[in-house]
């Protein structure tokens, strides 16, 4: 994150409980309202199942459970962020169930600080850095790492 050029990037923010997260907008394909999710048997709890996205079968992950938070009741704000993730060098489409989507905002690379080594409950390797907006910290996620296949596979093995 060396800020030699102040490159500006756009981020989409969403909330999980009190916490504010951001992902690079280039990773996001669309945001959907909550729909019926078909559970795939014998898979970990945080893998909610699959939905029909205009004829394609897309897996959905509960971000709260993924990050070790407790499951929340669905509200009108609950939505699924459809993202394009690179997994094992393959592009795959995946949905992330979040409490609410906030906004799209711009952040200069100079404004992003490296993730703190300690003091956060989230694994440092999941973070690209920390941003700040109106006195609130935003955790900028390295979404490819969050959904890295090895992690999902490891948990899948335990789950079954």
């Amino acid at each position: 994150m060396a800020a030699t050029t102040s490159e500006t990037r756009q981020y989409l923010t969403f909330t999980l409980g009190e916490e504010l997260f951001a992902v690079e907008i280039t990773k996001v394909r669309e945001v959907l309202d909550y729909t019926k999710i078909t559970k795939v048997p014998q898979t970990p709890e945080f893998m909610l199942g699959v939905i029909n996205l205009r004829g394609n079968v897309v897996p959905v992950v509960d971000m709260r459970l993924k990050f070790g938070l407790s499951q929340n009741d669905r509200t009108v704000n609950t939505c699924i962020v459809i993202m394009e993730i690179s997994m094992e060098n393959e592009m795959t489409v995946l949905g992330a169930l979040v409490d609410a989507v906030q906004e799209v905002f711009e952040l200069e690379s100079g404004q992003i600080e490296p993730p703190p080594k300690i003091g956060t409950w989230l694994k440092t390797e999941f973070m690209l850095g920390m941003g700040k907006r109106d006195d609130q910290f935003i955790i900028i996620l390295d979404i490819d790492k969050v959904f890295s296949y090895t992690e999902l596979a490891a948990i899948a093995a335990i789950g079954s």
Partner: protein
Amino acid sequence: MSTPDDMHKQAFREEASELLSELENSLLELEENPENEDLIGRVFRAMHTIKGSGAMFGFDEISHFTHNVETVFDLVRSGEIPVTKDLIDLTLKARDQITTMMEAEMGGDPPDRELGEKIIAGFVALIPSNESKAQSGPAEKKPEPEKLEPRTYRVRFVPNRDIFKSGTNPVYLLDELKELGDCKVLASLKDIPVLSQFDPEACYTGWDVIITTDKDINDIKDVFIFVEDSCEVSVKVIDDPVLMESPSKYKKIGEILVERGDIKPETLQTVLEEQKPIGEMLVSKGLVTKDRVESALEEQKTVKEIRSKRQTDDSASTVRVPAERLDKLVNLVGELVIVQARLSQTSSVKNEPILSSIAEEIEHLTRELQDSTLSIRMLPIGSTFSRFKRLVRDLSAELGKDIEMTTDGADTELDKTVIDKLNDPMVHLIRNSIDHGIEPPDVRKAVGKPDKGTVHLSAAHSGANVLITIKDDGAGLNPRSIKLKAIERGLISPDADLPEKELFGLIFQAGFSTAEKVTSVSGRGVGMDVVRKCIDSLQGSIDINSKEGEGTIITLKLPLTLAIIEGLLVNIGDESYVLPLSAVEECVELSKKEVDAAHGRHIINIRGEIVPYIRLRDLFRIKGERKALEQIVIARINGERIGFVVDSVIGQHQTVIKNLGVVYRKAKGLSGATILGDGSVALILDIQQIVDMARDKEVTTVA
């Protein structure tokens, strides 16, 4: 592929690769029948075409290289060079060289020039008295004995009455004629006298034969060469594709008169009705006998049929289409099937007659569209089979074994995507048969088998599946050494008593190889597990049958297509699941009473037959209460009947298979997902895997 030049090159590449594979086949066949002129001609023509079109599209190197091969085969054709194993070897090498050269032109690795020169030198050495041939060269070679377009001839054969006395049976001559092409034989019986005057040693019958053949008129005359002098034989061309275009058929006189307004159409009609067919008129006047007229009518019919057939042949040409476009079409049809399911569901809810009839019509059309779209992607498996011929040949030579490959069912059709993925596992299995299965000739002799080993490939349809078997007459699998190996690898416990079939199944475990030594071909233990994975990914299954000392039969069961299957939709809890209907045999009810009667065992008595069942709700740990009355779907898996307990059976469902993606690659018991009429997702069950899962579970709970 932007410039026209690129497009031409691509076209050349496609054409050439087809020619090269045909060339390979012809060469391998030629090795078996070195005298076959037809095959030599085929090799020559393939080389000639590659050379010609290579030069046309600027592949000068290929063209130059091929030239030498062509020259040699021209000499082979004229009988100056015999077909030997060396020649076939060399030509096969040359074929491979051309392939690499072509790949190089398309941006692949550059070819080994030294090898190329060596091959050329090999060919040049084969050309006898090089200098005398050099001037004439292949450019001046005599025109090929081109195959004639099929023509139709009329043969009238009236044998001499005394023909039997010379020991000739005219029927044999007719049979000989039949071998030349399509024949219609009509006997003329008019000369047969009444019985009192009948001489049993005389031949009274004559024949008119309408024959369609690509042979020359002389070939037909040759049939009668020994009876020509004593019998009446006439051969005449009655239909020739070259002459066919002649506009001899003009309007009939009546039509012209009507057109000119000289007579009214009705008048013509009444006059025509009075008229009898010309044949009948002639017969009634006694000018000609009835059988003669019939013979003439037959001739007329045959020619008409041939002409119309030729026209359809011309129009039934093929179109080359990139595979992606077909895949896209199949995907679109898949979407259509889903939308159609929605429409049908909506119409059944609305209960409106007009809507229902439209929905029904769409359903018919969609089904038809689906069938014909999928059939476009169907290819005969023969092309894959013939590729293995070369593999068998090279491998057996390398290993010093004498092995012959035979095939049947090469015209069995399979989805292109399945065929493409089938190549690697088949190669592995065939390699295994050749390397581990078939013994060296001396060992074979010692145990009293013929020196030559055989690998037999066959393909056949079986319902919605295709069965592919690889059968060898080699040593077979040794259950004891498999068991020892499995114990050594810790795959089974030393005191485990597995039936033979399960022991054989162990060879598909990763890292398992019973070969004593590692050869370049196999024995590393990679391969069989890859085969298993590959076949699993195709929704197929593998079955091994082996008898020690007699050979091994491996059967692959594969679905016809991977795009759309016929499914049975069932419900468990809130979710819907699809079972492949091809495996389902029947559905029965399972009441609480029956469950209680079985005392905790998962078996049910169906018409006196004990069938084990798997409760999917338990296996999948689906939350919620069991229903009082459940349904069991009975399916046949590897010859065994097994029940799957579900909450309710909904019905048949055209299932468009969707991939579950990388995330759920590890999910067990599922082969994909599909989208239902209401837009929700249903999972497709892999019943074979579910049975395996249930077995594993039982083993662990017992242990």
